[in-house]
């Protein structure tokens, strides 16, 4: 707080006692960090405990101290889960659906955001306010009609049904990206147009590199949405072959409600990929979440 020194000098009488009490206070620092660490335990503990539970045989999980670390790494639960039924297939289904959904939503979203931010065309602003208005429509309102549409076009129980409604772009991320693209310096685009660059070239050579942070944000939002999506896949698929991970975990939980060791292992199969992504990209993820809060 270098800037704070100037006014303080002007009021020596008032601030001097405060300054003295602000010396290094190791006890206070210790308590502060202890407090932060205890809070961190609350946020991390469920993961750790779930791992402990999933790495124990059934007999140990029903013992008197289920929170202790496993005595030996028992992988039987994961083996049972992964090689039983079609669990690996469900994992693959989720990966496939999430990849297509994310690619489409971000790709088509970038196109739309660029047009709304940087192109002139009749009806642009009216059209954009229609997009904004759809932000007010809660997901659940469209569930019944979307299912009806999918039935009419015979797409229920297909991968298409699971990802199609979210793959052509999402108004929320289009809005975020448009705001960001509008904040990019205008003269760069003017220069590119003078040089005769096509809109496509401007998009791929200028907007996408310059808009990287917000595109990462949109990708993250789409990926987490696709990976976690539950209600829509639950409704639109009822066969085994297209089932996604979340639906199968919920089904396992009601089928083996008292075999916690197995159900925990199944849950961790869904959680671990997100944990890995978070560990690798944590800096970008934190920044990208904050980016979705500003520019609104």
């Amino acid at each position: 707080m270098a800037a704070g020194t100037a006014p303080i000098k002007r009021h020596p009488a008032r601030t001097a006692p405060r300054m003295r009490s602000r010396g290094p206070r190791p006890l206070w620092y210790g308590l502060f960090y202890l407090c932060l660490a205890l809070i961190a335990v609350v946020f991390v503990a469920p993961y750790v405990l779930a791992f402990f539970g999933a790495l124990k045989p059934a007999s140990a999980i029903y013992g008197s101290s289920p929170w202790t670390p496993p005595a030996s790494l028992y992988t039987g639960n994961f083996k049972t889960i992964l090689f039983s039924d079609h669990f690996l297939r469900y994992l693959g289904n989720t990966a496939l659906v999430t990849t297509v959904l994310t690619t489409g939503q971000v790709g088509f979203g970038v196109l739309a955001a660029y047009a709304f931010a940087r192109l002139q065309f009749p009806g642009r602003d009216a059209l954009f306010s229609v997009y904004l208005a759809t932000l007010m429509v809660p997901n659940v309102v469209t569930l019944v009609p979307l299912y009806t549409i999918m039935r009419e076009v015979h797409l229920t129980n297909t991968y298409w049904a699971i990802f199609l409604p979210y793959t052509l772009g999402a108004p929320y991320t289009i809005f975020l990206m448009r705001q960001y693209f509008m904040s990019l310096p205008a003269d760069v685009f003017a220069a590119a147009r003078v040089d005769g660059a096509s809109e496509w070239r401007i998009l791929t050579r200028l907007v996408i590199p310059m808009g990287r942070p917000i595109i990462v944000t949109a990708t993250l939002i789409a990926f987490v949405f696709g990976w976690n999506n539950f209600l829509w896949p639950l409704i639109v698929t009822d066969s085994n072959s297209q089932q996604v991970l979340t639906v199968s975990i919920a089904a396992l939980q009601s089928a083996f409600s008292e075999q916690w060791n197995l159900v925990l292992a199944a849950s961790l199969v869904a959680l671990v990929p997100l944990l890995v992504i978070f560990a690798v990209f944590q800096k970008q993820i934190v920044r990208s979440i904050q980016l979705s809060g500003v520019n609104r």
Partner: protein
Amino acid sequence: MSPVDLRGVDGASTLRAARQPRRIPHAMRTRRQARRRARQLAVALPFVLPSLAGVVAFLLIPVVIVAVLSFFHWDFLSPPHWAGFANYTAMSRYYHVFHALEITAYYVLWNIPIQTAIALGLAILLNRNMPGLGLFRVLYVLPYMSTPVAMAVVWSWMFNGQFGLVNHLLALAGMHGPDWLGSTSTALPVVAMVSNWQYAGYNMLFFLAGMQAIPASLYEAASIDGAGAIRRFLKVTLPLLNPTLLFVLVTDVIGSFQIFDTVYVMTQGGPGSATDVINYQIYSTAFRNFDVGTASAMSLVLFAVILLVTLAQFRFFRHRTTYEVS
């Protein structure tokens, strides 16, 4: 803003216009304008068309369909029959939609205030210049990256009446814990707590960003005027966080009203109807009882409730002073 509308004017066409003789026949001018607009559309259309198709097919048309369906009796199979307002009356008479809305409101109250207060508290703790705080920030955000269905399983295990960790720990302290998810008084708060755990750190990030945008000079000025830490928070931080608070509350409340995943996994709406939130009821009405018309009517009621609550929040925050800090 310049008083002259310069939209759509580029260098080339201005030059061309200057070289033209003064009076261009009106018809020719409009034709040229139409041609320019057509050219603009031809450029823009490929960019907009995919997302426009998505918005129309999967957002706008469904809203129309849900409104139409709410006036029909339909079970997905036999041909639909005109129902008039029967679905709207059935909704409260047979499905206790107001009870479900009440439970949803309780859920929102167990979720939003606690979650927002924790997020604000965490942001205050971390909004300072000390080593190692970045690590804690990351750890607090971690739960955001979890699948609600999977995490609901983990929390169900921890709050299990017989084998759950929570009751084991309580037993160590000599207390007898309840059957958390099996009791009507504790089930709803426990389900709400899962969301609080998942999104508190996520919201903290928005508050942190908001706090860091507040210029330090304001705090210094307040200190010089003799304001203590609490007064500085109430009189400087909180008013300047109004826009962040509005954003966080509006998005969280909309999500909270639509809670489904954790309820489905942890309680299935039970015990009794203790966690029978509106979204769960819409789901079971449409896809278990196949009463499509009533489920559509319920969706519209929820839509209206969410709209009203959102508008109320905007009004509330508009009447509070917001400050522009450059």
